[in-house]
């Protein structure tokens, strides 16, 4: 066997490893129900903000606490806790993606991504 063959085998093994690791580490888009069943795992939850319920951010008291209620795509609602200031333009977001895990009675979000209708100024008709 030539050295190059050994190299090729190692190469293939590493590539398979890279693919497996991608799926091993990957999170999935799920709803709150699945997140509640597996509180040890981190999930991406896509949903909309419940504008009826309070959205609390009181920096004078705690600059690192923002709470709100999100309704996921299956219609399940949960309280969400985010340890950072309220993201800009949060109330105008069309869709919210939160990344984190379920705790007792709330979802701990480590990251929030917003889908704003206006983000790249698409689709608005000019006023006039």
């Amino acid at each position: 066997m030539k050295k190059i063959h050994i190299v090729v085998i190692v190469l293939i093994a590493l590539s398979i490893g890279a693919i497996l690791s991608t799926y091993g580490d990957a999170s999935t888009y799920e709803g709150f129900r699945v997140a509640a069943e597996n509180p040890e795992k981190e999930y991406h939850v896509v949903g909309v903000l419940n504008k009826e319920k309070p959205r609390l951010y009181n920096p004078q008291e705690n600059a690192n606490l923002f709470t709100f209620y999100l309704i996921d795509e299956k219609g399940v609602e949960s309280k969400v806790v985010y340890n950072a200031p309220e993201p800009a333009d949060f109330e105008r977001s069309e869709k919210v993606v939160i990344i984190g895990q379920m705790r007792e009675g709330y979802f701990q979000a480590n990251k929030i991504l917003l889908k704003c209708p206006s983000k790249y100024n698409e689709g608005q008709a000019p006023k006039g």
Partner: protein
Amino acid sequence: MNEIQFIGEHLIYGNLGHLAVTISFGTAIIATIAYLFAANNPQQTSWGKIATAAFYTHTVAVLGIIFMLFLIIRLHLFEYHYAWQHSSTDLPLEYMVSCFWEGQEGSFLLWIFWHVVIGNILLRTAKSWKFEVMAVVMLCQIALTSMLIGVKILGYKLGSSPFELLRNAVEGPIFKQANYLSKIKDGNGLNPLLQNYWMVIHPPTLFFGFATTIVPFAYAIASLWKRDFTGWIKPALPWGLISVMVLGTGIIMGGFWAYESLSFGGYWAWDPVENASLVPWLILIAGVHVMIIYKTTGNSLIVGMILIMATFLLVLYATFLTRSGILGNASVHSFTDLGMSGQLLVFLFMFIILAIVMLVLRWKELPRSSKDEDAYTREFWMFIGSLVLAISAFQVFATTSLPVVNKIFGTNWAPPSDVIAHYNKWQMPLAILIAILTGVGQLLKYKTNTRKALISILTQAAVAIVLSVVAMFAFELTNWFYVGLMFAAVYAICANIAAMLPYITGKLKMTGSHVAHVGFAILLIGVLVSSANKRVISNNQSGMQLNPEFDAQANMEHVFLERGKPLRMDQYEIEYKGDSVNWVNNYYQVRYKKIGADNKVLYEFDLFPNAQINPKMGLVANPDTKHYISHDVFTYVSSVPKEKSTKFVHEKTHEVKPGDTIYTNNGYVILERVNSNVKEATDIKNLSLLIAAELKVVTLDGVYQASPMYGIRDNAEVKFESIVEEAKLRFRFMGVNPQTQTISIEVAEQDTSGDYIIMKAIVFPWINLVWAGTIIMIVGFLLAIWRRLQEYKRTAEA
């Protein structure tokens, strides 16, 4: 229905623009076909002439498109969708240039422009390869210019025109009015995140990098086409190096822009859009190394060709990823979907098929070696290093492609929730291998080696062990992977410097690879130290009991800072001093005082992180960074109150005579004199008396003047208050007391409880090594390009 005659539109610009797009598309087709025939019929010179004429017409047409698009933006012709969507009247000229490539159409145009520039260079330098290489470039131009056509053909919209009229692009009742244009006063404006100096130069650099990858690809195709498997290396090699240099510079410029103007706190976020341009760069570096192996030893041609062709195909793949909308939730900064995914896929597969077909056709004829490789040579380890680079690229590619996998298989995978950990676990060991291999490879010679090489490899390793142990303590590295990477990088530096020494006098142009490798190793050290020892210093230090219901381990990285109330944060005392407005941005002045031992202030500086309250995007924060040689202090404002309080509180009235002093919470005030001859009073009518108290207001920050006034009109008192913004004080002249010969001055303090910022601050140690390493790497590439260009010139003359 009658056609409405719209008023005030400047249709000539768009019509000329459309015409130029059509001509550029048509000439691209003609040129491709003509170059194809010219290549296959070398006896007939007429094909070459037609091709050249078509190419020059194409060049002029492309310049015409650019000129027209720029005029539309520059003249604020908002009847055009592109101008309306991406620009506004208040933008400075340099940002109008950025508007040009904010949209997809403009960035395609930029790419097309670079291909035209490259085509003009190739026409003069490619010599006997001219026709084949140009045919490939022009084939790509057909695909690219088709993206700008924007005409429906058989129900399918081909491309998206930058000259589309607003009234055709967007629906609205307003377009039923003939004078609609007079009601559109301004455009949508440029995305505030792109209003940055780096956004003016980063996109052209990156696109030049993308554009140059076609040249080695075209030479590889041409070599298969002509069955000349050796001759393509010399002309293609300088282009490959130029591409590595420019693309690398473009990527790191993007990182620098992110660091300077985005608030995620860093220069690299493993965002799919960043990854999409990193992958072809890594593959290209691997490809260039294998090309050099083939040039020197005659081995590994097939791998080299595959890597070089894969680079260009990966650039097309990156284009598909970022422009088809497929990244969706996975990336924060991909382009808007223009419904061109189908066309982009055709573009991608057209070239994938071309590359595969050409390789398959010549597969049997390609030279390959049958004997086993000698492991004690430079080419062996260079080859291994290239494969490690390819694995590194593949790993990034695999994770970045998750949205594509979801699309094909209908799965719902999301990116890893901790992307940094995911990438680190692969990229760090690979980086260690690559850094060590750059050293080993350089200390070995091609083909055969003596014991001397092994001795110097081991000697340098010993030196590197000593130095990296020192570095480990100096940079306080605790993780063993970090220590390993530090050793590898230090080894790369030592070995490359040792290998460079013989060339330093007289043969400077031979040192390109050494210099580039040293730069790369310094870059690695910079990345390692600045991220391993990155320190968020704005941790919650309020001492307030946090709600126990919530996660105690969650990071509390934002600090609440009330104006005028200093706070201790890490080794700094910080104070929010106030804000000011410039153009559309609000600047928040934050004073940092570095506190040393026994609480002495060592030095102080001000940072002005700014925020734009954008009507469309809310608060858009821009950080400000204090740069020191050994570290950066990075600060951004993450939240500000929606409305500031304008109340004044703690009113207190003082009876004073001229010369008297009033003490305030932040200094003192002296009544200098009482002025009964007030000039400003001329426009205030019917006053029987007007006197002003002239006050000198002294605070820690400065001395200000205030003159509250007191008057009588129709037997009633009138008071004119005076506010000193900087001192946050309000003065009122309350009255005169003839008995005691004093006047009453009321002093009130501004209510600052609603004047605060929420900010985050990060210290990045030794981040300058990242930029320094990059610059050294670029110098190395320049030297290498110089050397390979001279080699090419020599063969071209011979």
